[in-house]
């Protein structure tokens, strides 16, 4: 996927004027945050579980190598294969290799953000393997040659009309705007694809070290068909997904569903433990787990360590007022919203993604709702510091801070400057009490008035009063 994060400001401007997108984003609030609030309210121990999940994740990260190796040995014991991939390129090649070994023409895919991260679909197509997305949202996007704008609701930027249009064009059936009819159409189209696929690729929400199992959660059941029908099942996932035991996994499943959609539990929770065994009713003959690093191991023990706790629930973006205003595509890469503003600079470079950690008011709502208590504003601030120290911040910011800092560090000069600016603004405002247009502050006055100072500075008035008293 082409990185469009450097154009964030322009993307945002366009998004704010996109009537269809704004309508679609309007549905987000009632869809996710309100349902989450109800689910949280119903579960008094929810916040204690968040503490437990944070502590458990921290423990896992401290012992990541041990749990990953345990996971690998269990997968191998069960007859599967684990492939360690340092980069996106390694992962793409590994997956293509497996596909070519079984002479695959088509692969069905469950939803996987890691597969977006490594740009898998494009690579498979270029090499003669046809990927077919089976998650309804992803399927719609594939028809439209579009990308996800959200990590769990990939087509949240679209409206019913868009889906109706895309289906009409590709399914060659009469146009319908009845969601039930559209669902049925997608179901029929996908059934044959499920049956005919040579390989099924899914992601994983968690990897269980004690059993060598992978698990995906879906609300559509498409994951089950993707991984049980084809002869080969490939799990594409990343190293921080490992948890020690099945018991631990359930803690995260309970937090994940509530934080994401406000459900008590996701509808389908599908575990895969190796290939089909003798006597099993179904299952693949070959089972592969492709473990992607892609910069994650560099985060262990560093400033971004806490970010590795992320369980990809999307609560941060669902509650983010900036995401709510501009949608996911404006962020210009795979992971949008607050979690993306921390991860994207790590994966594509701060040089390209510098806008993302800056486009936040640090309102702290993301941290407030994060099920594993990731201090997202602090991590975004880390990137701003990194940018400042590498001299990547825009000149206007650097000079502005340098000029302001010069005065802020010298109280007497600062007073004089405050008094002068105060006088200047009061003079500009006249009797009106506010200013419509202020030099160097167009960002402010283009959209709102600048209230003028209501009198001389507090310090001037206070000193005068103290003088009068003595």
């Amino acid at each position, binding site marked *: 996927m082409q990185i469009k994060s450097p154009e964030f*400001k322009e993307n*945002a401007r366009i998004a*704010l004027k996109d009537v269809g997108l704004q309508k679609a984003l309007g549905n987000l609030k009632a869809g996710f945050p309100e349902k989450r609030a109800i689910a949280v309210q119903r579960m008094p121990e929810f916040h204690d579980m968040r503490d437990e999940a944070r502590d458990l994740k921290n423990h896992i990260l401290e012992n990541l190598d041990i749990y990953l190796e345990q996971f690998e040995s269990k997968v191998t014991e069960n007859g599967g294969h684990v492939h360690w991939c340092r980069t996106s390129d390694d992962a793409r090649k590994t997956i293509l290799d497996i596909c070519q070994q079984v002479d695959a023409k088509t692969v069905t895919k469950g939803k996987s953000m890691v597969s977006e991260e490594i740009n898998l679909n494009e690579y498979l197509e270029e090499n003669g393997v046809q990927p077919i997305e089976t998650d309804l949202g992803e399927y719609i996007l594939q028809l439209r040659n579009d990308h996800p704008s959200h990590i769990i609701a990939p087509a949240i930027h679209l409206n019913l009309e868009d889906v109706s249009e895309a289906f009409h064009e590709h399914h060659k059936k009469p146009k319908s705007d009845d969601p039930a009819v559209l669902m049925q159409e997608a179901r029929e189209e996908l059934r044959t694809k499920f049956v005919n696929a040579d390989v099924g690729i899914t992601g994983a929400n968690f990897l269980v070290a004690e059993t060598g199992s992978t698990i995906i959660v879906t609300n559509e059941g498409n994951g089950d068909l993707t991984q049980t029908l084809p002869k080969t099942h490939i799990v594409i996932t990343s190293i921080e997904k490992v948890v020690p035991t099945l018991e631990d996994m359930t803690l995260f499943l309970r937090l994940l569903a509530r934080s994401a959609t406000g459900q008590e539990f996701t509808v389908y929770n599908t575990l895969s433990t190796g290939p089909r065994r003798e006597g099993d009713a179904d299952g693949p003959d070959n089972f592969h787990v492709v473990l992607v690093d892609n910069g994650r191991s560099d985060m262990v023990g560093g400033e971004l360590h806490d970010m590795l706790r992320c369980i990809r629930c999307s609560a941060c973006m669902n509650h983010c*007022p*900036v995401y709510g*205003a501009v949608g996911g595509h404006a962020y210009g890469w795979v992971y949008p919203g607050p979690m993306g503003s921390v991860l994207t600079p790590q994966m594509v470079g701060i040089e390209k993604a510098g806008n993302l950690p*800056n*486009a936040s*008011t*640090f*309102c*702290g*709502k993301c*941290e*407030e709702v994060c099920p594993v208590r990731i201090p997202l504003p602090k991590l975004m*601030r880390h*990137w*701003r*510091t990194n940018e*400042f*120290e590498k001299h990547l*911040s825009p000149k206007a*910011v650097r000079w502005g*801070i*340098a000029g*302001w*800092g010069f*005065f*802020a560090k010298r*109280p007497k000069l*600062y007073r004089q400057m*405050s008094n002068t*600016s*105060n006088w200047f603004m*009061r003079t500009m405002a*006249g*009797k009106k*009490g*506010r200013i419509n247009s202020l030099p160097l*502050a*167009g*960002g*402010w006055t*283009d*959209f*709102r*008035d*600048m*209230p*003028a*100072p*209501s*009198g*001389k*500075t*507090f*310090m*001037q*008035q*206070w000193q005068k009063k103290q003088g009068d008293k003595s």
Partner: protein
Amino acid sequence: MSVNSSPIRVGLFVTCLVDMFRPSVGFATVKLLEQAGCTVEVPEAQTCCGQPAFNSGDRETTRDIAKQTIAAFDGYEYVVGPSGSCIGMLHYFTDLFDEADPWKARAEDLKKRSFEITSFLVDVLDFDQVLASFDQKVTYHDSCSGLRQLGVKSQPRKLLGKVDGTELAEMPEAETCCGFGGTFCVKYPDISNRMVSNKTGFADETGAQTLLGGDLGCLLNMAGKLKREGKAMEARHVVEVLAGMTDTPAIGEADYDLGKQL
């Protein structure tokens, strides 16, 4: 609290926005503190809390300002300011120094002593002798840092409940950011505009005459938007109402006393 106990010595952290734009908020804070039995001093060596540098990634400038501020407020029993955001920044000073740095302990000490005004009155002093009347329907915006970092939510409402004639009508999404965000509002003006438009819309829905809040940055943003939209709703800092200092024009309203104040 007992009226006979010796006065509590408070250092006022004015905040640069109050100093520059709305001195009456500073005086209202002083008045409330004095009503609550404190003596208030205003150290001259204070400037800004350093937040613009901190959030722009300039750690060195932030540290210099932090040291200056810590030194300026040495010796005060408490440090109180009319802003959750700026007091929140004073609390962040502890993150700026290594364990071995002697400034670390001084920053920790300042953190323990510094409070946002409504939280100080309610949580520390258990003050409820509000002597004010304001015959209006008001709505209240919860500013982010005060709310999420310092836990300021019930305190201003509790105090407003003691004001004669004031009716509080809560707006939808009172806890959602207004889009100010310091430099955010000028770096990403289009997004900020969307956020503040949502906010003024919600505030207006309540039918309140005045929008109150505890942070001047957010209030300047919301008042500026209300005026640009031609809405009648006015905006004030909550301490103006609590101190009974509402005879001056609201934020961004015509100032007929121009030039006559001193």
